[in-house]
């Protein structure tokens, strides 16, 4: 709701003298009233006001201790005894010595309380009805809140004739602001003035909820004392919570006197069960408004309250509607490319559109994205880190630095923060920021000197109500209900999407698992099914060569050799592809092993003396031990050695050196050759699948180095090559 204190804000209750003052058991009524009360069961009179003789012809001394039917006649008694708890009885009209009085009865705390107050009977009932009807229709026509307040203030002024009518609204701290005013032209305006919460203390606010309309008919008159049976008014004071004529507290009277007010009327504006504000009427001389008129005022106030609820509900509904449209747009954007960050902060619609905030941010999966005016990234992360330990789903404040002074550096951009955490465990959150709004607050009197202690150490209210301006810092505009609702709804949406995304990833993972299994089957099939026809090609080519070679001409003979050569190549290619797929599939079996021993083993199985008789191979005698999958590293070495042998074949004195050395501050095993080498710019390409830098004169599938790289990567190690055309290559690797 756009007004009044909501449950979102902490209700600060400061107990002052005023707050402690037992204003409902002061034991006094106003001068215009008369009171007699009896025990609700025995009907023995137990309280009387000093002035009761003016009405009942007998004084308190004569009445106290008497049964009530000794005071009232049979008809009156019957009416009085119909009074029910928590209900005000219909007033009984009585005339005493030509004066009209309303007799008002109510039950409270086991007492039947009967009050008398004057009645104005001169008013034309018909005209009065007309006036009320007019007021209702005017109120219904008032479109917006401010207009409604203004119309109400004017109508009440006109109807009741007070010098000043103010509509006074409570903020979240129970400070009151004059939001509308109708006054006699010679009076200075109090519109916009703020009254501190202590001006209307907590128990006064409670009483307002119980009793809609109250008047003080004559501020300066002396209140009338109430006597109790047996003089026990001190020990057993009468509870006047529901009394119409109850006298005000001396502190309040002094407060009004300090404002030069002679009479007042106050009506509570109650919206959805909570005190929204007050209609406060001041008159600068005594003024009495009778019971019926007060009832009219109550009725008016009720209409005003319900209009207010209707209006704010309509506004809320409209805002929520807009927000829900924005939300569906945001969701559409997010689901389009499954990017929550971009969806919320980029493009024509962003999460900022959901509120009146100046900035917003989303923190998800360790990534922060911002939109609008916000603190910088580090500051937001610090804020999240500060808020998360509070263990609240959401933190909503309009005065961040008052609550958390250590966050002073973001005061300007984020005095208002609304932070909704997306999960209990993680720091993922959506946030909105409202900038600091330095506001000039016009207090009615210096709020630092609201009251002073007099010579008797008694608290007295302030004497001056002159406007006192204060610059208020560190506060933002309030968070409206619709903003909070929209933010919560967005949180729900995002949580849903994250959940869906998780499911999707899980689905993909399962598919991947199946794909891996398929790949394994595929590799096996390749081995099995490709080999058999290849054996046929190779086998029958050999058979032709064995049995029919002489019958062929030269081209036929060379063709047979080509078939056999191609089959061999094909077999090699299948071997390599299988080895490659095995690397990604197989589990690593890590252990410590001697690199020297492994190098010897691998060199041992290569046909070096047979195919490369002229090569000279040097192995460093004491390379460091290695830790990894020995079989896989054997594959790496074999591939590197085969490479080195192949590319040094054309060199006059082929040399291969195997060892260990420092490279860029890290230890690397290396295989160095003096072969044909290549341009260093091809370094990356050389490790790619099926990438060959050389022509067909060098056999090979272009897979060997890719396998080597994969194995090293699987070990979280590094592999590199340094090469120069004509000077040879050095392959370096380590195992992480």
């Amino acid at each position, binding site marked *: 709701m756009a007004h009044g204190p909501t449950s979102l804000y902490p209700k600060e209750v400061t107990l002052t003298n005023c707050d402690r003052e037992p204003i409902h058991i002061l034991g006094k009524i106003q001068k215009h009233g008369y009171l007699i009360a009896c025990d609700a069961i025995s009907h023995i009179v137990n309280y009387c006001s000093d002035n009761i003789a003016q009405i009942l012809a007998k004084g308190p001394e004569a009445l106290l201790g008497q049964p009530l039917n000794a005071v009232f006649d049979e008809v009156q008694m019957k009416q009085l005894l119909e009074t029910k708890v928590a209900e005000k009885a219909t007033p009984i009209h009585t005339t005493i010595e030509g004066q009209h009085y309303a007799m008002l009865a109510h039950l409270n705390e086991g007492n039947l309380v009967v009050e008398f107050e004057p009645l104005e009977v001169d008013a034309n009932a018909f005209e009065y009805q007309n006036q009320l009807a007019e007021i209702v229709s005017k109120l219904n026509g008032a479109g917006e809140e401010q207009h409604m307040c203004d119309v109400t203030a004017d109508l009440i002024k006109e109807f009741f004739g007070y010098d000043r009518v103010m509509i006074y609204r409570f903020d979240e701290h129970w400070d009151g602001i004059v939001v509308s005013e109708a006054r006699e032209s010679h009076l200075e305006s109090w519109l916009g003035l703020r009254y501190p919460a202590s001006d209307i203390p907590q128990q006064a606010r409670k009483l307002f909820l119980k009793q809609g309309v109250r008047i003080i008919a004559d501020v300066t008159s002396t209140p009338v004392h109430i006597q109790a049976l047996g003089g026990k008014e001190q020990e057993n004071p009468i509870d006047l919570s529901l009394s119409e004529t109850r006298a005000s507290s001396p502190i309040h009277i002094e407060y009004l006197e300090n404002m030069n007010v002679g009479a007042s009327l106050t009506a509570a504006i109650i919206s959805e069960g909570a005190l929204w504000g007050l209609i406060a009427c001041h008159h600068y001389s005594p003024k009495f408004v009778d019971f019926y008129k007060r009832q009219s005022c109550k009725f008016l106030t009720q209409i005003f309250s319900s209009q207010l609820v209707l209006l704010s509900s309509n506004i809320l509904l409209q805002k929520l509607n807009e927000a829900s449209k924005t939300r569906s747009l945001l969701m559409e954007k997010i689901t389009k490319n499954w990017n929550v960050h971009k969806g919320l902060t980029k493009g024509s619609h962003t999460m900022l559109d959901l509120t009146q905030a100046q900035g917003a941010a989303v923190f998800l999966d360790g990534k922060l994205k911002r939109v609008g005016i916000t603190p910088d990234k580090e500051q937001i992360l610090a804020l999240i880190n500060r808020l998360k330990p509070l263990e609240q789903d959401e933190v909503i404040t309009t005065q961040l630095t008052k609550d958390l002074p250590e966050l002073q550096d973001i005061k300007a951009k984020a005095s208002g923060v609304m932070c909704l955490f997306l999960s209990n465990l993680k720091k993922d959150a959506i946030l909105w920021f409202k900038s600091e709004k330095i506001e000039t607050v016009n207090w009615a009197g210096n709020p630092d000197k609201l009251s002073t202690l007099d010579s008797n150490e008694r608290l007295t209210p302030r004497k001056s109500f002159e406007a006192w301006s204060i610059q208020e810092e560190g506060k933002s505009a309030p968070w409206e209900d619709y903003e909070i609702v929209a933010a919560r709804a967005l949180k729900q949406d995002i949580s849903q999407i994250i959940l869906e995304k998780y499911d999707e990833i899980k689905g993909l993972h399962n598919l991947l698992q199946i794909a891996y299994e398929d790949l394994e089957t595929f590799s*096996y099939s390749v*081995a*099995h*099914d490709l*080999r*058999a*026809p*290849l*054996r*046929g090609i*190779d*086998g*029958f*080519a*050999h*058979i032709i060569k064995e049995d029919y070679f002489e019958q062929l001409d030269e081209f036929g003979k060379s063709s047979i050799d080509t078939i*056999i050569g191609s*089959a*061999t190549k094909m*077999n090699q290619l299948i071997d390599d592809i299988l080895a490659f797929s095995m690397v990604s599939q197989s589990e690593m079996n890590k252990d410590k092993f001697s690199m020297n021993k492994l190098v010897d083993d691998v060199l041992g199985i290569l046909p070096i003396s047979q195919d490369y008789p002229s090569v000279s191979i040097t192995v460093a005698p004491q390379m460091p031990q290695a830790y990894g999958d020995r079989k896989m590293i054997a594959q790496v070495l074999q591939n590197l050695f085969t490479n080195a042998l192949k590319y040094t074949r054309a060199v006059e004195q082929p040399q291969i050196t195997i060892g260990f050395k420092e490279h860029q501050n890290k230890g690397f095993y290396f295989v160095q050759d003096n072969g044909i080498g290549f341009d260093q710019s091809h370094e990356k390409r050389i490790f790619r699948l099926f990438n060959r830098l050389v022509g067909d004169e060098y056999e090979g599938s272009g897979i060997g180095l890719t396998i080597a790289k994969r194995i090293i990567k699987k070990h979280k190690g590094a592999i590199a090559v340094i090469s120069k055309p004509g000077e040879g290559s050095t392959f370096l690797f380590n195992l992480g």
Partner: protein
Amino acid sequence: MAEDYILSIEDNNTDIALMNRIFQKNIPHYGIKHISDGQEAVAFLESEAFRLQQPKLVLLDIKVPRLNGLQILKKFRKIEAYLGIPVVMMSSSDRKDEIIKAYKLGANSFIEKPRNYPELSKALPALINYWIVYNK
């Protein structure tokens, strides 16, 4: 069919043709009988005809239709009377799990089918001769 023969359970026609050629060239004194279906093979192994005329050796491919080589081996090795007949398993791959399984089920030897013909034509007769001589 010659008196001494080798039973080959193999479904690949190319391999069958190559084997025929190798037998003919290198071990012409042995006949060769091929069965290319798993269930057929088991039926034959459990038949009276088989009991009366037992092969010198069984060459058993791992991948044959309907019942695979390992399943056939399992059934065959349950017949105690034939435990003396050597079984050589053949496969196009060298999958460790299969090799171990084959030996556990009672295979006498396991060879990965050689890549090229010269190798095959040397390896196969050698292996067959070895087991036949060993068995004597």
